[in-house]
């Protein structure tokens, strides 16, 4: 690369960083104060683009029209954020940790379908910014004038936010709440108002980030999820709640991507390295690296109290083996009574149930939330597929070895992850999942690349769907039983103890990390088993099994059922899978319907379905006779 191209790529990186910074700053603000992992933030960004597109058409392609449209769109998105906060999130602030994530996920589904309904499926290419449509020549290379403006907007917004946070009473409250939320409550500040205002500002930033992209990016329906992952990465790399950190991280990631592209293909020591392909994961590589070296991000500080407004986790009640036995008998009888498809759907549900229970094990009792649990599900599935297809092992052997392979990955990933806590830990698991995904996705000759592996079918004696149903029931049932058993063993108690008070655990001689690491490996292996059973039931396996979507599905299942109960994840897996199957068949706008159903559950049962039903049952029993 010549000096000129290095300079231009640097500017490209900075321009790309601008919007990323705005979105991430909003996310960081919201998370810092409310501790809500707001999935819907990307949807707000998307609405910013769509809103700006429509408003520019209405207000005209003049500089005045353009800029008023951009600002107006940002403000409207801010109002949408307020609406989400007031109508939904406010009702569930006291729900168990992360439960709000479920609500915001539902909002994502709803907004996506609303956008499809309102703006249609076609990409909407916005106009260039009036007066800034031309390019500026720098060292003989051309760069759009608008990009230079964006580069300037980043620091301006940073400065404005800094003033807002350091020079106003509101800012002082936000900073205090970011440090220690309970303290602010104690100071007698109206929390509801503070949260709403923070949501407004955060959402305006998301909307502005989106609206400003309209000359650079067509409004389309994929933006929500593609931007939310990036925004989380930036927020975490920068350090949660740190606006300056978000700025720094956005620049690092934006510039790193630009340079991966700029460097292109190079040959080092005879091997060809295609840097442009790294753009698929470079942000996650950076995040993994940063978190391993700095467990609280670049400019983040250890959270004063990880404790959120929630009460401590309630005690776990052991599963009733009698009820489990009844269920088992029922499930064994299903193929005799029901049609073939029920067994197929239930086979899926079994796999997801084990997947969800393994995730619950690590995020509930062990207190280590994983945003990348699909890594183990997917790697188990791939291990099964590759051992079967490439190594030529019999299907039975592949099924047995696959969990061990997934567990082996968990040995490596877990070793790093248990060194962190809270959202940082969660994001590191996500980073590892994405890195695994990108390798699987690109390693054509071995993993089949984006297509995946085919012809992964069970042996003849298991080929019949009913027989396979029993195999899945046996494998997943045994996996779940094992996890539950472990939960009530000394090992399981150590994990719960470590979640309740790491300080006390260490003080009574427990080397917590070792236990947590072992827990990672255990759940990794069992998620891998779920993946392997799944792979053989489908006959194929593709990278989507390791994708963020798969990880999110797991989280949704656990939260939907209720993270504080043992049977919750199973109920969540069953209901989520069944609902998706049912709803998708019945309506075209099935995503919105799913979203609304989840929202209804969230609002009616803030402890998840099983948790809520249990509470209801308890109230029923205690009512005066």
């Amino acid at each position, binding site marked *: 690369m010549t000096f000129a191209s290095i300079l231009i*790529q640097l500017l490209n990186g900075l321009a790309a960083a601008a919007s990323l910074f705005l979105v991430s700053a909003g996310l960081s603000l919201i998370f810092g104060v409310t501790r809500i992992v707001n999935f819907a933030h990307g949807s707000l960004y998307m609405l910013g683009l769509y809103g700006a597109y429509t408003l520019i058409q209405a207000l005209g392609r003049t500089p005045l029209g353009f800029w008023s449209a951009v600002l107006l769109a940002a403000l409207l998105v801010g109002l949408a954020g307020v609406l989400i906060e007031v109508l939904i999130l406010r009702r569930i602030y006291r729900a168990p940790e992360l439960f709000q994530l479920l609500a915001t996920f539902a909002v994502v589904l709803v907004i996506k379908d609303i956008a499809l309904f309102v703006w249609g*499926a*076609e990409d909407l290419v916005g106009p260039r910014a009036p007066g800034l449509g031309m*390019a500026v020549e720098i060292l003989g290379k*051309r760069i759009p004038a608008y990009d230079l403006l964006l580069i300037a907007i980043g620091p301006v917004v940073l400065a404005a936010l800094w003033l807002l946070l350091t020079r106003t009473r509101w800012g002082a409250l936000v900073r205090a709440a970011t440090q220690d939320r309970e303290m602010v409550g104690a100071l007698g500040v109206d929390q509801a108002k503070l949260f709403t205002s923070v949501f407004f500002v955060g959402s305006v930033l998301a909307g502005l980030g989106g609206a400003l992209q309209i000359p650079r990016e067509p409004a389309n329906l994929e933006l929500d999820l593609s931007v939310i992952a990036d925004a989380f990465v930036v927020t975490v790399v920068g350090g949660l709640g740190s606006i300056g950190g978000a700025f720094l991280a956005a620049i690092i990631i934006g510039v790193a991507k630009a340079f991966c*592209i700029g460097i*292109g293909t190079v040959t080092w020591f005879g091997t060809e390295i295609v840097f442009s392909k790294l753009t698929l994961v470079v942000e996650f590589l950076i995040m993994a690296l940063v978190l391993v070296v700095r467990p609280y991000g670049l400019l983040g500080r250890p959270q004063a109290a990880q404790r959120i407004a929630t009460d401590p986790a309630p005690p776990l009640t052991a599963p009733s083996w009698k009820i489990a036995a009844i269920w088992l008998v029922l499930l064994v009888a299903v193929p005799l009574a029901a049609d073939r498809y029920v067994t197929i759907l239930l086979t899926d549900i079994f796999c997801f149930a084990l997947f969800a229970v393994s995730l619950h094990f690590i995020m509930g009792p062990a207190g280590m939330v994983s945003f990348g649990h699909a890594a183990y599900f997917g790697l188990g599935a791939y291990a099964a597929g590759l051992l079967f297809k490439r190594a030529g092992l019999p299907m039975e052997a592949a099924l047995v070895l696959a969990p061990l392979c997934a567990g082996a990955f968990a040995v490596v990933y877990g070793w790093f992850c248990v060194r962190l806590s809270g959202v940082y830990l969660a994001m590191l698991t996500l980073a590892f999942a994405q890195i695994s995904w990108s390798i699987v996705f690109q390693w054509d000759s071995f993993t089949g690349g984006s297509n995946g592996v085919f012809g992964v079918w069970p042996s003849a004696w298991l080929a019949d769907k009913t027989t396979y149903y029993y195999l899945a029931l046996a494998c997943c049932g045994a996996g779940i039983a094992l996890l539950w058993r472990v939960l009530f063993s000394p090992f399981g108690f150590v994990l719960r103890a470590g979640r309740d008070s790491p300080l006390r655990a260490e003080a009574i001689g427990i080397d917590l990390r070792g236990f947590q690491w072992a827990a990672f490996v255990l759940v990794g292996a069992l998620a891998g088993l779920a993946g392997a059973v799944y792979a053989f039931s489908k*006959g194929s396996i593709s990278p*989507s099994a390791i994708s963020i979507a798969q990880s999110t599905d797991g989280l949704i299942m656990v939260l939907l059922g209720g993270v504080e109960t043992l049977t919750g994840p199973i109920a969540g897996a069953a209901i989520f899978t069944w609902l998706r199957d049912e709803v998708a068949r019945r309506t075209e706008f099935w995503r919105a319907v799913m979203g609304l159903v989840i929202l209804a559950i969230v609002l009616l049962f803030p402890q998840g379905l099983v948790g809520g039903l249990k509470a209801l049952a308890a109230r029923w029993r205690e009512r005066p006779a």
Partner: protein
Amino acid sequence: MLTRNRFLAGTAALVALSMIGPAGAQAPIKIGELNSYKVFPAFLEPYKKGWELAVEEVNAAGGVLGRKIEIVSRDDNGNPGDAVRVAEELLSREGVAFLIGTFPSNVGLAVADFAKQRKVLFIAAEPLSDKIVWDSGNAYTFRLRTSTYMQTAMLISDAAKLNKKRWAIVYPNYEYGQSATAAFKKLLSARQPGVEFVTEQATPLGKIDAGAVAQALADAKPDAIFSSLFGADLAKFVREGQQRGLFKGVEVFNLLAGEPEYLDPLKEEAPEGWYVTGYPWSEIKTPEHTKFLNAYQAKYKDYPRLGSVVGYATIMSAVEAIRKAGSLDQDKLIAAMRGLTHMTPFGMIEYRAIDHQSTMGAYVGRIGVKDGKGYMKDWRFVDGKDALPSDAEVLKMRPKN
């Protein structure tokens, strides 16, 4: 206990729902269709309209084998695992005769493998992957749409004619982009020895950093560019490239960019002079197309996209296969599909017995801009059979079974 009762009730409902079996005897012939409607709505909404129109026409003409046809359509969520489950549901609960549909390659390939396992006919409508009929081809799977290789091959003669020495390549980083790139390099090198590929950019699907990519391509000082971008990536690339002067004095070839799905959103910024494959719907005057166009516009008050043609033709293939087979027996259907010829809006096509690929062609031309809109000019129709490799090559790629 309430919990348990609730669950039992849920299970009971599930079981009950599943017992609603297939309808009685002289019911319509059910065909199972699955696609990623919500993941790729821009392409699949027109596709759906296309097949709905075809079903209406077929049934108005009395159906096939004396029975009407009914499409049972499902959303596969763009996920191969879900797709296989949905396919199972279509076969075992809905009792469909066979399967059609799919869009992304990984879903298409997964369903193809499933069809092989279940020994049912599958007509892959949209997936472009070459593997679906070649490397991973199987006896039960047929593919309608002009494949990646074919579309690339269709552009080669124009590319070779220009005799440009330095080529830059940009492609979405997944199988479609990779195979397009591989095919292009192979075919062009064969036609034009000494051609040089000066840089290659693999961009994440849907997330291209267009400014940086345009700059990197410009730095390589290419004489020509081969791109397989589409959708939002294409729109971003076009805008950044134009603003940065990337395309000045450089010839650009872009697969698919002439399809209305991807060309129309560009509006007045459609890149003039690009060589593309696509669908100049307003200018095709063959009787078969005119008939289709009129019917489509009458029904939907909208013009067809390429997806509409694919959806329409898929139903035609399914119906003609049933007619030729004279029964819904899988072996007979497969036998009928092999070598099946029938009319489509793009003329006659044949499902080749050798690899189950249809010979559906595509339109090749250059992009022009008129009245603030992009269109295809200087276009010509290339028959699919002229864009396929030799039989010997095909046989080498396709597994024997």
